[in-house]
């Protein structure tokens, strides 16, 4: 199994490097360097975060690109040779992740050679788990976004849930405050106060409840999903990680594992209608 996954991984990287997409990735790296590192010598936190962001973004694009190549009709005979479809899925993940990591390390090496920031040993040791975990979760999200893995409404459901969670995490209190104000205004309308006093007082009670509670628990619960990202950024910018924040990369890897299992489940049961062009 490992040999087949490795063969497909190398094959996908070969196809990427012998096509225009490989050139685009190199170009993206050069442009990113020019924008982010050309002028100044970065601080350690800047180096970690900005190259981490580059790696994660590039991993997303690289996995999408690999999934696009795997989704071509060339792949039909490959599938009949594999013991499980998941071998191909793993190869797509490995190829995209590996290629992006290579370019990320290349960018880091160029920065370190030309204008290296000063690192403590602790800061240097923080980098691998931060970069790898962020790359991995973006890689798995890219798989869900690709035609290769997505089946019917699967990607709409997944990214829809994520969008709702972002909305709740960022704006839920504003929404609740707005709703409380509307209810309070409604409860003081003269016509309602004169005819339906009990209903008006119920509205006021609801408005008070919303205004006082602010439903922080819901915002916090929704925000929990994104906590590992915030924790990593906080830890890097503060120059030190709390014990809880130090768990963030591991949580990201755990989330990536769960999302990969979900992708595998979707992929195992879908019709492979590959692109014939």
């Amino acid at each position: 199994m490992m040999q087949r996954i490795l063969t497909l991984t190398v094959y996908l990287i070969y196809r990427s490097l012998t096509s225009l997409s490989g050139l685009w990735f190199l170009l993206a790296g050069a442009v990113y360097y020019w924008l982010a590192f050309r002028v100044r010598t970065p601080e350690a936190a800047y180096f970690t975060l900005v190259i981490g962001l580059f790696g994660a973004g590039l991993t997303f694009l690289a996995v999408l690109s690999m999934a696009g190549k795997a989704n071509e009709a060339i792949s039909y005979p490959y599938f009949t040779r594999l013991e499980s479809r998941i071998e191909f899925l793993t190869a797509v993940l490995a190829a995209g992740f590996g290629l992006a990591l290579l370019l990320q390390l290349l960018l880091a090496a160029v920065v370190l050679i030309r204008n290296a920031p000063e690192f403590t040993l602790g800061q240097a040791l923080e980098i691998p788990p931060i970069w790898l975990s962020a790359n991995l979760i973006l890689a798995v999200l890219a798989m869900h976004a690709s035609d290769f893995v997505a089946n019917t409404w699967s990607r709409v459901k997944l990214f829809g849930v994520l969008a709702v969670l972002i909305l709740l995490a960022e704006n839920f209190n504003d929404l609740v405050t707005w709703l409380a104000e509307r209810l309070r205004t409604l409860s003081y309308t003269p016509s309602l106060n004169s005819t339906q006093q009990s209903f008006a007082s119920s509205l006021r009670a609801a408005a008070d409840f919303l205004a006082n509670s602010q439903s922080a628990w819901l915002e916090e619960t929704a925000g929990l999903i994104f906590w590992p990202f915030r924790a990593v950024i906080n830890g890097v910018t503060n120059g030190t990680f709390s014990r809880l924040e130090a768990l963030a990369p591991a949580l990201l890897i755990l989330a990536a594992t769960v999302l990969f299992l979900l992708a595998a489940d979707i992929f195992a049961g879908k019709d492979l209608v590959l692109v014939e062009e």
Partner: protein
Amino acid sequence: MLRIERITKRFLKTVALQEITLPVRQGEIIGILGPNGAGKTTLFKIVTGILQPNGGRLVFGGNRQPRMGFKPERLFFPERMTFRQYLNLMARLGNIKPGERKTAVDEALLLLGLEGSGGRRIKEASKGMRQRLGLAQALLGDPDLLVLDEPTDGLDPAGQAEIYEIFRRLRAGGKTILMSSHRLGEITAVCTEIAILHRGRVIYQNRMSDALAERPKAVIHVDRPLTTLRPLLEMLHPQLQVGELTINLRGESIARRREILGIVLAAGYDILQIERRRATLADIYAEVTRS
């Protein structure tokens, strides 16, 4: 080896296959016939695990999925690779041991007449060579079951004959082949069993030898046009067809050949020849798809 059991496949509201049941016995070459859109390619993609059926199942002999080689109808390759690089890739995916890979690739190239083309880039290959390469990758690694969608499409007659010979040798070696073709002559020449698909259903299946034997034909050739006798003869049996200078008898009408000969001779015709023929696959195909 494999039993296709009540397989149904729908694409949205379109039913592509409807309760298909077909035994695939080891050592047989099964030809799947049918007009475009009958469901042949869909059936092959279900057998190879590329599509998932909505109903029914595939039952594998010994509860073990056979090793398969698949040649799709439309061939696509990584164009920048050479023939040898591509076959090496397939050999790796087919779990051929590192020490045996070169031999396996060489044998596949030799078998398909591509021994001088190992270093050729796929993008430089002709249609016929691509077809051979498609077959070579399917044969690589000695799979138990070959699923071949239009295996000789794009080959010249000599190339087709070579491929038929390869199929016969593979069968003699115990391999099983499931193939489709629009060439009825090809199916007759190589297949030991046939199944005819029409609108997603199997409307006919039989051993090839039985299929050809069960619909004999007799043809009576006469010396003059049968214009005046035609109405009388055609009334004798619905399976009797009168041509300009021939009387074609099929099925049960053959039993009435003495009576027919009596009428023809009495009318002053001379009998030039009486032929007894086996039915062709074209006859069977036309008959079952019409009915």
